[in-house]
C-alpha cells in the first residue's frame, strides 16, 4: 500500500478536468445569453494544460505507482490532442450557436473526452488505459448524437455507442487474458514477465483481443464499418474533433501497449498488423473514390490514414514511433483544417457537404478554396506539405526496418488517394456554380483555424527537422 500522489504527472489532465467542472457549473448558473463564455473557459483550460504539458517536457516523471508517466511520447501526443481539441473548440463557437446545440454540455463533453485522451496516451497500466478509453468514448457517443433533432445524428450516436461498447468488451477481455497470462496489468512488468518466461499462449490471446479493441477505436479494416456512418451523421465539428483526437489518443495507447508491453510477441503481431495495414489503406482509399459526400469521403480517408500510421507500428523502433507522432501531428492540423473549410462554406441553414456543392467556390470564396486545396493536397501527400513529409518518414521507417514491400503498397495507395482528394479541387476551380453563391461571411474563429492549419501544414512540410527530432526523442523507453 503506497500513496504515490504525484499530481504533477497528471497536471495537464487535471487542468482540463477542472475546466470541465467549471464549464458544467457555468452552464447551471449563467444565463443563456452569457453561455458563449463557456467556450472561452474551455479554451483557456486547454491552453493552460498545453503550457503545463510543455513545462513537464524532459522531466520524465511517473506517478501513482507507475500507472501514469509524463514521458516525451505521452507529452507529445498530449500536445497534439490539446491542439486538436483547441482548434475544434474554435470551430465549434459559431457552429454551436448556428445549430442551436446546448453550449455548456457540448464543451463539457469535449473537455471530458480530452481528459480521457490524455489519460490514454500517458497511462502505463491497462486498467487506467481502459478507464481512459471509456472516459474518451462516452462523451463522444453523446456528442455524435448531439443534434437530437436530426435522425442521422441519433443513428450515428447509437451506432457508435453499440460498436464502441462491443470494442470495449473485447478490450477488457483482452486485459483479463493478459493479466491471466502475466499476473500484472502494468505495461513494463508485463514485458518483464513475458521476457522471462516461455511463450505464453494466454497472453497471446489477450494481445489479439486488445488489438481488436484498438482496431475498433482507430477504425482498422475489418473493424471500420461504423466510421462512415458515424462521421457522416455526427455534427461536423464533432466529426472533425473525433477524426483527429481519437486517432491520436487510441494510436498513442496502441503504440505504447504493443511496443512497451508486448515487444516479446512482436514476431506474432508484426505480420498480422502488416496485413491489416494493407487492407485498411487499400479499402479506405478505394471506398473513398466512390463517395460523393465530402464527410463520407473524409471518413474513408481517415480509415486509409489509420492504415499508414499502422505501418509505423509495424516498423517499430525509434523511427516507427517518431514518424507516427509526426504523422499524427500533421494529420491533426490537416484534417481539422479540411473540416474547418467545410464548416466555413456552410451556414446555419444549410451545410454544403455534397461534392457538387463545391462547384465554383474558388470564385465566391477564393481564400477558403485555396486553403482547402492546400489541405487536400497535404492529405494526398503532395510535397511540400506536411502530409508528404509525414508519409516520407513513415515509409522511410518501414524500409529501414525491412518492410519495404509495405512502403511500396503505401506509396501506391497515396497515388490512388490523389484522385479523390483532387475531385473537390476540380469542382471548386473548374466547374461553374449551379446555384447562386451569396457571399458568406467566414466566422473569424473558423478563419483563424484555417490560417493555423495552412501555416502549420506548410511549416511542417518545409522545415520538418526540429519537430521530427522532438517526436523521435519521444520514443518509448
Amino acid at each position, binding site marked *: *500500500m*503506497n*500513496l504515490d*500522489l504525484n499530481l504533477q504527472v*497528471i497536471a495537464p489532465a487535471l487542468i482540463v*478536468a477542472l475546466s470541465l467542472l467549471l464549464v*458544467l457549473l457555468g452552464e447551471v448558473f449563467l444565463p443563456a445569453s452569457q453561455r458563449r463564455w463557456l467556450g472561452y473557459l474551455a479554451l483557456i483550460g486547454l491552453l493552460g494544460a498545453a503550457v503545463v504539458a510543455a513545462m513537464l517536457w524532459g522531466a520524465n516523471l511517473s506517478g*501513482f*505507482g507507475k*500507472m*501514469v508517466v509524463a514521458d516525451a511520447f505521452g507529452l507529445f501526443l498530449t500536445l497534439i490532442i490539446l491542439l486538436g481539441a483547441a482548434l475544434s473548440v474554435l470551430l465549434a463557437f459559431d457552429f454551436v450557436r448556428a445549430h442551436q446545440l*446546448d453550449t455548456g*454540455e457540448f464543451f*463539457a*463533453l469535449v473537455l*471530458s473526452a480530452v*481528459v480521457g485522451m490524455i*489519460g490514454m496516451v500517458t497511462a502505463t*497500466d491497462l*486498467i*487506467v488505459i481502459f*478507464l*481512459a478509453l*471509456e*472516459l474518451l468514448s*462516452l*462523451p463522444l*457517443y*453523446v456528442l455524435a*448524437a*448531439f443534434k*437530437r*433533432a436530426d435522425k442521422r445524428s441519433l443513428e450515428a*450516436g447509437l451506432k457508435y455507442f453499440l460498436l464502441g461498447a462491443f470494442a470495449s468488451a473485447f478490450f477488457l477481455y483482452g486485459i483479463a487474458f493478459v493479466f*491471466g*497470462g*502475466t*499476473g500484472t496489468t502494468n505495461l513494463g512488468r508485463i514485458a518483464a*514477465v513475458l521476457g522471462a*518466461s516461455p511463450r*505464453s*499462449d*494466454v497472453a*497471446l*490471446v489477450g494481445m489479439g483481443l486488445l488489438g481488436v479493441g484498438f482496431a475498433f477505436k482507430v477504425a482498422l479494416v475489418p473493424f471500420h464499418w461504423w466510421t462512415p456512418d458515424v462521421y457522416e451523421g455526427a455534427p461536423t465539428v464533432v466529426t472533425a474533433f473525433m477524426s483527429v483526437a481519437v486517432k491520436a489518443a487510441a494510436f498513442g495507447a496502441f503504440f505504447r501497449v504493443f511496443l512497451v508491453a508486448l515487444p516479446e510477441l512482436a514476431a506474432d503481431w508484426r505480420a498480422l498488423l502488416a496485413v491489416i495495414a494493407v487492407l485498411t489503406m487499400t479499402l479506405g482509399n478505394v471506398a473513398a473514390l466512390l463517395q460523393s459526400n465530402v464527410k463520407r469521403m473524409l471518413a474513408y480517408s481517415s480509415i486509409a490514414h489509420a492504415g499508414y500510421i499502422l505501418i509505423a507500428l509495424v516498423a517499430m523502433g525509434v523511427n516507427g514511433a517518431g514518424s507516427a507522432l509526426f504523422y499524427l501531428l500533421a494529420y491533426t492540423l490537416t484534417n481539422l483544417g479540411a473540416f474547418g473549410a467545410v464548416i466555413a462554406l456552410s451556414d446555419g441553414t444549410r451545410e454544403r457537404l455534397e461534392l457538387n456543392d463545391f462547384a465554383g467556390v474558388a470564385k465566391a470564396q477564393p481564400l477558403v478554396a485555396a486553403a482547402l486545396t492546400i489541405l487536400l493536397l497535404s492529405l494526398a501527400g503532395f510535397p511540400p506539405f506536411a502530409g508528404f513529409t509525414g508519409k516520407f518518414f513513415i515509409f522511410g521507417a518501414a524500409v529501414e526496418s525491412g518492410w519495404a514491400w509495405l512502403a511500396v503498397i503505401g506509396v501506391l495507395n497515396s497515388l490512388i488517394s490523389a484522385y479523390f482528394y483532387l475531385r473537390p479541387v476540380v469542382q471548386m476551380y473548374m466547374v461553374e456554380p449551379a446555384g447562386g453563391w451569396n457571399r458568406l461571411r467566414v466566422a473569424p474563429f473558423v478563419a483563424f483555424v484555417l490560417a493555423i492549419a495552412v501555416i502549420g501544414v506548410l511549416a511542417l512540410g518545409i522545415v520538418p527537422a526540429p519537430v521530427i527530432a522532438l517526436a523521435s526523442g519521444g520514443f518509448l523507453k
Partner: protein
Amino acid sequence: MEIIVFYLFAAIAVIAALGVVGLRNPVYAALCLAVVFVSFAGLYVLLSAPFIAVAQVMIYAGAILILFVFVIMLLSPPVDQGEGALKWQKPLALGFVGALAVQLVLVLALAVLPSARGSLTPEVIAQRGDVQVVGAALFSDYLLPFEMTSLLLLVAIVGVIVLAKKR
C-alpha cells in the same frame, strides 16, 4: 466440499448464461442473467472475496439488471421470433463464436498460468478483513483509477441528461 460447491455454482452459471442468449423472451433472458450474477457471487465467496460477492449482487443483480428489466417492461418488445433481416449472418456468427470458444478453451486448458501471487493471500485478507483490504487498495494503489471512475460516472450522467432532456 469446496470443489462440489464450485462445480454447482459454475454449472448454474453456465446453464443460465446459455439461457440468456438462447431464450427468446427478453424478460426470461434478463432473469437468467440475474441467476448468472448470483452464482458468480457464490464463486466469489469461494474465492474468499465476500465483499466482491455482495457488491456483485447489490450492484449488478439489484440495481443494473433491475433497470434492464424496467426498460424491457416499459418498451415491452415483441418476443423474438427468430426471423429478420440477419438471416445468413446467424450461421456465420455461430461459426465465429464457436471457433473463438474452441480457441479460448484450448488455450486455457493447455496454458500454464503463473503461480506467483501478490501480497494479499487469503490469510492476509482473513486477518485484515476483506472490506478493509479492498478499501485500502482502492484509496492507495488504485486511487487514480478510482478517481477516474468518478469522473466517468459524472460524464455518463451529463451525457444521459443531454440526450434525454426535453428541448
